[in-house]
């Protein structure tokens, strides 16, 4: 820095980082749910915070204004609670689909309510990219112990009917002590059921899940599990299996630091990814409250009262997380920062400090 340089410079930008071209919105349109999973990040399951269709449109307008300003393509995942319990789901999808800035729409569901009538409605949406169903076990016994009786068979039935009707299916698996041993079988199941993508997400003990901190996996367990998943993903990739196992998440980069330096690694076996908080995603709650991430329950504004730009550019929480110098412990100065910054939500749930090191980091 030259302290004697007084040549001023001001340049217009479309966004903080001009290289980004997609933005992800996870929009929880209801808290109502027909299941009561013990590890859930929710605490309430009522409709008191739900918005009318008019208010949902107001929020959608904020989303599309931002996307146009940022010249980004919008990916929106509509979820709950259970999104199919909210009557405004399809009218909202119709509204979103009309806007050119919305690129892809996904639905995150427990799969229990999906029937042919719902499938017929879903097929009307050209921008519907996938339906993601949560499972918490590869067997009926494990899954139903966690998600409730009958939920496994119903979810499998929904995977099948969606596939039969040409709708991409994804599987979300929240991994913890009660189900991590079934991950290999889960991958078999996903291949058998023609599921396109599996996301194996680490359990964040918040909401109801805070009552089950004993389900939280140790760093050694996570290391062994991720290693096993990576080996399996590589093996399936070599065989040409179309299933995609998501590994561009935090911690994964440690499995092969050399791999993340290469630019020609196929997506199927690529690993590691930064937490997207403050970079290219936000979560919207049923009442319009905005969170940095659904698993990090620190409100940073409300889209019915605040402009999305005000939230995005003035939130102290977002700025603290954007500045990786603020990270503590092992995460501070970690050379893997471009491909990992630890899970801020897990840090917060386990320590009360979202800037602390990721407690499952095995480095």
């Amino acid at each position: 820095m030259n302290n004697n340089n007084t040549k001023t410079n001001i340049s217009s930008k479309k966004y903080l980082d001009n290289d980004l071209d997609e933005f992800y919105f996870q929009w929880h349109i209801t808290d109502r749910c027909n299941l009561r999973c013990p590890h859930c990040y929710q605490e309430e399951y009522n409709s008191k915070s739900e918005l009318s269709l008019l208010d949902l449109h107001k929020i959608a307008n904020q989303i599309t204004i931002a996307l146009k300003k940022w010249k980004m393509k919008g990916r929106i995942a509509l979820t709950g609670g259970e999104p199919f319990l909210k009557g405004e789901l399809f009218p909202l999808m119709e509204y979103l689909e009309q806007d050119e800035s919305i690129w892809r729409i996904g639905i995150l569901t427990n799969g229990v309510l999906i029937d042919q009538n719902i499938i017929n409605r879903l097929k009307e949406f050209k921008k519907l990219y996938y339906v993601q169903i949560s499972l918490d076990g590869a067997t009926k016994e494990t899954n139903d112990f966690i998600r409730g009786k009958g939920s496994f068979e119903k979810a499998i039935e929904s995977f099948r009917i969606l596939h039969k009707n040409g709708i991409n299916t994804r599987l979300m698996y929240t991994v913890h002590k009660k189900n991590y041993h079934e991950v290999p079988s889960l991958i078999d199941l996903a291949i058998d059921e023609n599921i396109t993508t599996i996301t194996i997400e680490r359990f964040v003990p918040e909401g109801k899940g805070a009552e089950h901190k004993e389900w939280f996996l140790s760093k050694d367990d996570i290391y062994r599990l991720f290693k096993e998943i990576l080996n399996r993903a590589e093996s399936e990739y070599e065989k040409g299996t179309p299933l995609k196992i998501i590994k561009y998440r935090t911690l994964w980069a440690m499995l092969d630091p050399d791999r993340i330096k290469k630019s020609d690694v196929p997506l199927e076996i690529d690993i590691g990814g930064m937490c997207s908080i403050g970079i290219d995603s936000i979560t919207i709650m049923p009442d319009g409250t905005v969170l940095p991430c659904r698993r990090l329950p620190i409100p940073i504004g409300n889209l019915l009262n605040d402009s999305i730009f005000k939230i995005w550019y003035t939130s102290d929480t977002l700025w603290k997380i954007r500045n990786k110098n603020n990270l503590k412990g092992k995460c501070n100065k970690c050379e893997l920062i471009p491909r990992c910054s630890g899970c801020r939500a897990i840090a917060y749930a386990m320590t009360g400090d979202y800037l602390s090191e990721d407690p499952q980091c095995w480095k």
Partner: protein
Amino acid sequence: MLEVNKILQLKEEYILHKLDIGNGKFWLFNIENGDVYKLNRISYTILSLIDGKSTVGEINRCLFDKYPNKKPDLILKDFEELIERIRIENIINERR
């Protein structure tokens, strides 16, 4: 040439932000329409001083003190270039 007794102020929809990474990143945001401007350090410093209280003369004297090795006429030129740019962009209010 700006009048020395003029008082400048960023419009209320504009906010400045400094990110302490590396040599620093400096931004000006319009929180109503989403306009984003990337600044260099001196531009950030000047815009920080445009607080609706200090006069142009006071700001310039502050800059002269901050950059004692720089010729005052060059500092004034750089300052006025920035003010002209943000005037065009309708970012500031001006009063005497």
